[in-house]
């Protein structure tokens, strides 16, 4: 029983750290797509931190399909286009204020886009049999906005929405505040 305090402290600390530092759970697919949103106030203090899955859209399905055969996708104007060879083009992260947002595989645009910013250069890593890709963008707003939706857009002569989701609850970015959106793609994460 002399070791009891050490054991109790260890159990407490391990569980505390696990609870406070493991935002990405529930990995269960061959490829998981998460999006993390962090809201900072005008003084730079973190006031909101959300991580959620981001459903993929028909355009992402078109690109995946294009790996294997001819394929098409609907662009942001609602026009179906044959996808050619190649993926050389900028990638944007978009936020919007649409309401209501009911994400569907057939989505091809945000309900009410507020701003799209070109994402940072993607980073890639391999650990064991798993691969990770991440990219992010930061939005600064001079006035207060309430964000309700987020999306990922690829430009290849036309804009294609690759992923789109509603936030579990609207988030307010205060005037002078900052919103950082990070996409995290984990490959072989659930196998």
């Amino acid at each position: 029983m002399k070791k009891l305090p050490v054991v109790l402290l260890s159990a407490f600390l391990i569980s505390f750290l696990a609870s406070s530092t493991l935002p990405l759970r529930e990995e269960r697919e061959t490829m998981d797509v998460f999006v993390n949103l962090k809201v900072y106030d005008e003084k730079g203090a973190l006031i909101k931190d959300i991580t959620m899955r981001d459903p993929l859209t028909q355009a992402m399905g078109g690109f995946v399909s294009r790996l294997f055969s001819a394929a098409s996708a609907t662009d942001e104007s609602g026009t179906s286009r044959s996808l050619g060879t190649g993926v050389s083009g900028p990638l944007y992260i978009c936020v919007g204020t649409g309401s209501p947002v009911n994400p569907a595989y057939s989505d091809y645009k945000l309900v009410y886009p507020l701003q799209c910013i070109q994402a940072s250069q993607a980073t890639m890593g391999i650990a064991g049999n798993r691969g990770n890709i991440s990219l992010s963008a930061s939005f600064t707003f001079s006035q207060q906005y309430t964000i309700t939706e987020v999306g990922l857009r690829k430009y290849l002569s036309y804009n294609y929405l690759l992923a789109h989701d509603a936030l579990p609850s609207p988030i307010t970015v205060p005037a002078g505040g900052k919103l950082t959106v990070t996409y995290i793609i984990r490959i072989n994460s659930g196998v």
Partner: protein
Amino acid sequence: MRKSYIFLVLVILAVISGWYLGSLTKNNQNTFGNRGGISVDLIVKQYRNGTLISEQYKRGDPFTKNFVLNMYGLLDGWGSSVTMQDETNTARSIGYGSLFSGTAYVGIGTGTNAFDINNYNLISPIAWVQSSATSTSSIGTNGNISFSASFPLSSAATITEVGVKVSEGGYNFLILRDLITPINANAGDTITVQYIIRLNG
């Protein structure tokens, strides 16, 4: 006995309180309800004299590093090329403009090595066949992409591995490989391999 019981209760209380207080330290709200991602299902069938004699289904067929690099090319708006290992294990620099070129081959083999993300070919391939055109469908938030290939066997073999390679920039790159439950096939049997790629589960 009583001391052990008290000890166990105290440890459980420490874990619960640690978890609770840890969750209070972050102002976050994680939700994983909407399934964002891709799963790969594999269906392998064996026919003898036109009759189905075995079938196996596997969920979660893994991707190789070459697939990761293809996805990187799609999601990177700044770079211009990726370096992938072709089917001969030669490093090839492929421009983003040559990725996703739409030609794929399904292969079967007799290798037994476990999947490794760095696999660049089947371990012991016995046949490659160009895949069928993809068929797509969707319901609600889910989308499915399916393609297949058929292998009439001219000689007996024990099939243990399957995979997919894509042609890009004039080279072939393995993007999927996995072991299957061994299939003891006779000459004249036909093996069909179907992949179903499910978006958002």
